[in-house]
């Protein structure tokens, strides 16, 4: 039997479920490094003499391919089982770095698109879902904690890779080289070790005997409530949830994507270093939200948690639009809170899908709903940058540059509040169908 066969990854009797989370966190730490791309953006622009947009597309392509791979490859990835999915993800993610390194060495930007964007993006899509679904099977009594741990790793990837890539670029650069290709190769090697180690550690619980049971004593691995992915996407709750997820991500990206220039527009006295400090705080809020909110959702319930994201988000955006430039402390606190909602959405969503559609197909359904991430990755920057660019051309400066964009996102959140109420109203009816 192949070492990658799903049966080889089934845990032996007595295996502690606390030995499984590091595999999920480590894999997400590796693929989450995509969010540290901004560190490489400046050096790549200089290397290729390319525009912000041209280099920005490398990251956007990776996120779009992530969503498409998770959505359309979901059933195949589910058949792989977690270990094979992790190995396939490692092969693509690491190859993506290596191909991108070749692109930099050969001065061919299209090879970087192909490597980091397309090949790497497939690695992201294959690797994202499997660890989340596996941890949920081990922690059926605490699905929010399980998804929080896994998805926290994704947020942590940026925290890890930003200083690491900065240090690597500094150490590999020389009078004859900017060090980018060597940095890509070093990150590839590091991620290969981390991801393959994670794949060797991951285990599936044995169904029934030896497997975990949930808080009601039911064996892990499915129930009568399991809904097929095709049936799930025909339910109105799925699309309402998709919309709420989309708006929550758009609201996060609205701040994240433009954090540094935004805070400097609201508070012109701030230095660039202080603005970079603000970006760092947002990263911490993102990671804390991923773990904290979904863990809390195990206690207060997923509907209440999601209601908190959209109602709280609308309040944050309205306050920022009305009084954002009044006090820097309030601005920073509100922005960090909003980014924690953004992170919390990613970790609460898989657990919510499990609540609504059962455990068995949650990985495939999660893959489909991740298309909301791809859509928001395009919509969020378009809304904010489009409005800011237009007002800048009109000669407007300071906080007023951003106010209409804040109102647009607040309005989207208001619609999401209605959609969220619809989910709560409809879920009971769907459950009894």
């Amino acid at each position: 039997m192949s070492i990658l066969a799903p049966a080889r990854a089934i845990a032996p009797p007595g295996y502690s479920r606390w030995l499984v989370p590091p595999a999920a966190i480590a894999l997400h730490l590796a693929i989450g490094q995509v969010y540290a791309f901004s560190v490489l953006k400046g050096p790549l622009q200089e290397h290729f003499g390319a525009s912000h947009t041209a280099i920005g597309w490398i990251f956007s392509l990776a996120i779009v391919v992530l969503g498409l791979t998770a959505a359309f490859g979901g059933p195949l990835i589910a058949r792989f089982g977690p270990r094979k999915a992790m190995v396939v993800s490692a092969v693509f993610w690491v190859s993506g770095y290596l191909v991108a390194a070749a692109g930099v060495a050969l001065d061919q930007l299209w090879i970087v698109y192909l490597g980091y964007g397309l090949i790497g993006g497939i690695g992201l899509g294959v690797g994202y879902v499997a660890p989340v679904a596996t941890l949920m099977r081990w922690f059926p009594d605490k699905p929010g904690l399980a998804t929080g741990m896994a998805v926290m790793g994704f947020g942590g990837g940026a925290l890890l890779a930003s200083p690491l890539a900065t240090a690597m670029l500094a150490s590999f650069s020389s009078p004859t080289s900017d060090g980018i290709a060597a940095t890509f190769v070093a990150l590839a090697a590091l991620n290969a070790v981390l991801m393959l180690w994670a794949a060797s550690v991951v285990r599936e619980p044995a169904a029934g005997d030896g497997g975990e049971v949930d808080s009601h004593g039911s064996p892990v691995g499915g129930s009568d409530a399991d809904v097929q992915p095709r049936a799930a996407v025909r339910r109105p709750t799925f699309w309402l949830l998709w919309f709420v997820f989309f708006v929550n991500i758009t609201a996060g990206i609205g701040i994240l994507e433009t954090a540094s220039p935004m805070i400097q527009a609201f508070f012109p006295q701030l230095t660039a270093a202080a603005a970079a400090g603000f970006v760092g705080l947002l990263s911490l809020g993102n990671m804390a939200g991923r773990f904290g909110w979904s863990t809390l959702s195990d206690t207060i319930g997923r509907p209440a948690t999601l209601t908190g994201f959209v109602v709280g988000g609308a309040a944050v955006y309205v306050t920022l639009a009305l009084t954002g430039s009044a006090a820097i402390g309030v601005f920073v606190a509100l922005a960090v809170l909003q980014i924690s909602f953004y992170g919390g959405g990613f970790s609460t969503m898989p657990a919510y899908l499990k609540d609504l559609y059962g455990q068995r197909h949650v990985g495939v359904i999660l893959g489909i709903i991740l298309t909301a991430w791809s859509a928001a990755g395009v919509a969020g920057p378009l809304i904010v940058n489009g409005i800011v660019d237009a007002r800048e051309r009109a000669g407007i400066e300071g906080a007023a540059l951003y106010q209409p964009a804040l109102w647009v996102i607040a309005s989207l959140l208001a619609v999401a509040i209605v959609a969220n109420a619809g989910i709560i109203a409809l879920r009971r009816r769907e459950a009894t169908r």
Partner: protein
Amino acid sequence: MSRWMVARAVGLWVVVVVALGYGITMTVIKASALF
């Protein structure tokens, strides 16, 4: 369940905690420039 299997998992816990600790510390240092 072999000791080697458990050692790999515990070792990975250590790596994960150290990596997250490094990332968080570096980010807190960066964020402190705001205050």
